[in-house]
């Protein structure tokens, strides 16, 4: 399978264009823009309630150059399943069907439809763009919000650890599973190219920071997305038929503390928590890299 080897090879055409309504430095908008380079124009996308569902279209204008449906919160993977069934019966084989959800539409309210579609091994791609919070309504904590992160509804820090969605999705034995980060566009785009070439249920989970939710500056999105990888809390890998391959080994490792201290949401974090998150990062790093 052909994959782009350098950023220079990536198509110039934009399928998620300028003029969208996202904040400056929005990690989610970056993720979509990058992914669409690989998915191409023969893609149907549906996005449940989330920032991404609203910033790409308003009134009679849209930033999308592919068919886009702003679907309902709980059911993007089910909508995608129906679209695929309809294309199949019409003999349309070369169209990517994508459900693209935030962390709520994936791990929380949208989880039922997701696990259903994954179990059925629907021939769709589900993408989770993960900003670790519910930004569309102001940033409340969800199940993948990290331990001790301060959000509007966890003002003293989230009391429970982040749910391991990747382990949960891996347990569904998808045809393809990958993590990605907006700080590594070539890696992200290659993963979408690979996912596109595979049949069956495909799951891609992208870390896409949100400056507002994270308490960082708008121009720090990519920096923080990279630091998450460098500290080991987010790792870049893919799994085909359950076999894991690490795709990016960070050039330098940084302590978790450095990643946390730049973010307003961790301003209250204590040393014990930092140590616990460091241990978690180390454990996960060993587990994934092994």
């Amino acid at each position, binding site marked *: 399978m052909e994959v782009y080897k350098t950023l220079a090879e990536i198509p110039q055409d934009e399928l998620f264009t300028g003029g969208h309504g996202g904040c400056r430095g929005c990690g989610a908008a970056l993720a979509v823009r990058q992914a669409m380079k690989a998915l191409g*124009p*023969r*893609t*149907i996308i*549906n996005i449940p309630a989330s920032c991404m569902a*609203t910033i*790409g*279209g*308003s*009134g*009679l*204008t*849209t930033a*999308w*150059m*592919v*068919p*886009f*449906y*702003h*679907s*309902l919160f*709980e*059911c993007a*993977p*089910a*909508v*995608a*399943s*129906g*679209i695929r*069934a*309809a*294309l*199949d*019966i*019409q003999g349309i084989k070369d*169209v990517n069907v994508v459900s693209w959800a935030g962390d709520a539409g994936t791990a929380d309210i949208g989880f*039922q*439809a997701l*696990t*259903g579609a994954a*179990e*059925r091994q629907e021939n769709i791609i589900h993408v989770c763009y993960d900003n670790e919070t519910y930004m569309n309504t102001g940033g409340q904590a969800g199940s993948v919000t990290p331990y001790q992160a301060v959000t509007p509804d966890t003002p003293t820090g989230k009391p429970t650890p982040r749910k391991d969605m990747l382990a949960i999705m891996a347990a569904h034995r998808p045809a393809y599973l990958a993590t990605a980060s907006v700080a590594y566009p070539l890696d992200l785009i290659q993963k979408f190219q690979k996912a596109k070439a595979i049949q069956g249920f495909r799951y891609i989970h992208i870390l896409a920071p949100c400056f507002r939710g994270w308490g960082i500056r708008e121009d720090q999105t990519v920096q923080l997305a990279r630091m998450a990888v460098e500290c080991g809390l987010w790792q870049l890998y893919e799994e085909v038929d359950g076999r894991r391959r690490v795709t990016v080994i960070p050039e330098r490792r940084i302590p978790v503390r450095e990643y946390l201290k730049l973010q307003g949401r961790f301003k209250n974090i204590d040393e014990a928590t930092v140590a616990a998150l460091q241990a978690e990062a180390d454990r996960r790093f060993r587990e994934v890299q092994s």
Partner: protein
Amino acid sequence: MRLLLNGNEAAAHAARLARVEVLASYPITPAAPVMEKITQFIAEGTMRCNFVRVESDHSAMAAALGATMAGARSFLITNSQGLAYMSEVLYHTSGLRQPVVMAVVNRALAAPHSRFPEHGDVVAQETSGWIQIFCENNQEVLDSIIQAFRLGEDEQVRLPVMVNYEGYIQSHTRETVDMPEQEKIDAFLPLVRRPVLDVDNPLAVNTVTGPELYMDYKYHQDAALQRAGTLLGEISEAYGAVTGRNWGGAVTGYRLEDAEVVLVTMGSLVSTARIAVDALRAAGEKAGLLKIRLFRPFPAEAVREMLKPARAVVALDKNIVYGAGGALGRELRAALYGFTNVPVYSYILGLGGRDVGVEDLTAIYRQVNEGLAAGKFPALYQWYGL
């Protein structure tokens, strides 16, 4: 070809004859056998259809909607809790003007838990923007599902349709059903694809809509729903020309010419009421029957016209809108208000599967006659058979 079919089998055959291409369904009692029958048709190769084995009714509606938006003819079945659970997707389907057809095998909504029939589930969706057709027997189930596709897919309408029949009373009871030839149905219901999600013609669907546009969309949606009311008559006639069976349009009358007291109802109770009217007529009473086939859009004008000679109207409702009465009673009052002073007697009966027989309807008729003779205003609504 005449077969002995229960309502669920009739619905499955209708989907097959309509050449449904995508079925999305989640099992719910007593509607699940429709799904089983269709998957059996698919397995034996008598139906070319993709079955999406969803994990919930919410997803069933979502998948059927997605499939229709991508250009396939889609169908699903549900009722009761499942219908309530898919409620928000129902609004998407009608708001996006997607002609999904759904069989609703009416069943009570908990609590307390009941597996038995009434119309409460579908009445709760009266504002969902779906066309709602009610069937009095299994033949009408088969015929109405086929007609529903033509109605919903019509360029002037483009709306989803619920075809209602009652759990057990119809779903699990066999009747002789005439099966039209496939070629006739193919001619009556050609497949015209209008995909909304099409890579060759990309559109953004359901974008955020502000106050300057939202209300206009709603106006058009309502106007389309109103058109469905008129169109059902034409479609039924066309269907009648093909199969010999014309169920009439939105509303049909029975022995109405000189009727003084008119029973008005929908669903399986129509058959019972017809027999009751015959019995009352045999006893010298001037009884008549108005069958509401289309509950949404409510055929107010036709109802008004047909009830003109009546001295009293009796709404028989297998549903309760808590604190407001029966849905049909309420609709009838709204339709007649300002046009006539004829009293509307509204009865709530048969909830959760409680039996309603011919003798109950004749008893109600006599109660109404007494009320009329006494010249009292009827109550807003009353319960019968407690």
